[in-house]
């Protein structure tokens, strides 16, 4: 049976975790960040490492897996891994401390450097991982709709969604323009001056075409009554997957347990 346009534009998700309501996912994200901060206050070993920060990595992998988006999420995580590694190495080698833990030729790793590096990089890794989970399992248009339903001004939610889309569009366009300029003979490899000179002919057409596009979109939006102050109708209907309530209950229980555990350890 042929589907109507209205049915085709709806977001279809079979996986119940992936199909959680966007607002619920954002709540889970918030809880997750709180959990990370609670556990990071528990220190181990003689140099006070917050070793429990590592717990979140298997938890995140599990979340990626049960949402059915494992490969997509892992791909998005590669950037984060690089950033975390740079932060860890730089902090570990640079920050001076009282005690030397490890020595590699002229490079020294002190106790406070190791501690700060470990703390920051694991924190960045787990928080960014949680963001990856939310944004890789949710469509941009779902986020926009959820924002609007939670009372955000429709202009603001339009700007947000349009930004997320625009980044994808422009980075694709920049590849195209760069290839086109290469075909015309613009050098993109060589010494720094050559490469710097390649920046302008790739970049200016990109911005100009984006601005022309924006001009056209103004006409489109205005002809569809975007600026009119009235109740807007929507084509997209967000559906709940049914697991929202249990998910929130689990989150609250985990939070209570973690806080209780932390308080017990304190006393």
């Amino acid at each position, binding site marked *: 049976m042929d589907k109507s346009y209205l049915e085709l534009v709806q977001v279809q998700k079979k996986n119940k975790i992936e199909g959680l309501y966007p607002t619920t996912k954002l709540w889970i994200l918030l809880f997750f960040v709180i959990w990370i901060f609670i556990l990071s206050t528990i220190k181990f070993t003689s140099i006070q490492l917050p070793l429990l920060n590592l717990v979140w990595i298997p938890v995140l992998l599990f979340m990626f897996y049960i949402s059915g988006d494992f490969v997509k999420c892992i791909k998005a995580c590669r950037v984060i891994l690089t950033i975390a590694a740079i932060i860890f190495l730089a902090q570990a080698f640079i920050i001076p401390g009282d005690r030397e833990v490890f020595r590699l030729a002229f490079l020294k790793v002190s106790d406070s450097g190791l501690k700060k590096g470990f703390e920051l990089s694991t924190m960045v890794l787990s928080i960014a991982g949680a963001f990856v989970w939310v944004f890789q399992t949710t469509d941009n248009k779902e986020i926009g709709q959820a924002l609007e339903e939670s009372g955000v001004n429709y202009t603001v939610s339009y700007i947000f969604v349009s*930004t997320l889309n625009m980044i994808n569009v422009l*980075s694709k366009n920049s590849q195209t323009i760069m290839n086109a300029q290469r075909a015309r003979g613009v050098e993109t490899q060589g010494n720094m001056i050559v490469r710097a000179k390649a*920046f302008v002919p790739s970049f200016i057409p990109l911005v*100009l075409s984006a601005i022309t596009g924006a001009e056209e979109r103004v006409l489109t939006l205005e002809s569809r009554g975007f600026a009119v102050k009235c109740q807007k109708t929507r084509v997209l209907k967000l559906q709940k997957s049914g697991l929202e309530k249990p998910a929130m209950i689990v989150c609250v229980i985990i939070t209570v347990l973690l806080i209780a555990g932390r308080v017990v350890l304190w006393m």
Partner: protein
Amino acid sequence: MAKKYSIKEDFSMMAILMIPVGVAVNVVGGQLASLLHLPMYLDTIGTIFTAIIAGPWVGAVTGMLTNIVTGILNPVNFWFIYVNVIAGLVTGFLARAGWFAVWWKGLIATIIMALVSTVASAPAVVYVFGGVTGSGTSLLTAVLMASGQSIWASVLSVEIIWTTLDRIISWLVSLGVMACIPDRTLVKFSLGELYTKKH
């Protein structure tokens, strides 16, 4: 009588649609710079550009949204949201005062903006990240710190030189873009009239 500005006027339909473009230009500029292995960030071109043609508030929103969106992949950026907001505001207010209509005033304005954003970002770099944020200049800062300089001296000296250079190049690129935009498009922005070819 001098023209009175209102925030509402700044956020015309055209300006609203320029915000996503500005953010994407910021992100793609950074990507392109790293693709070409340039030792610069070039990730504020969009903020500078929107602030110059559409005023401080549009620039500030562009700056804020840039760091929110990039923060999704790199939470370090969340700490620097206010820095980009300040950069957008400073550029926008100077642009409103007409500084970017003349090239040498534009250069001075860019340097002022770079200095303000360096000073604004330094406390977060020092206190939250111990001088090392994982960005390109971190290694340079780290080398200075390892050679015995104090953390404030290392962070400020590296960032002032680097940010100023970076912002000047970004401003030059924005100038290039503005020179290519036809007048009929420029006048659709609240500050666009300042940059039309008047003859």
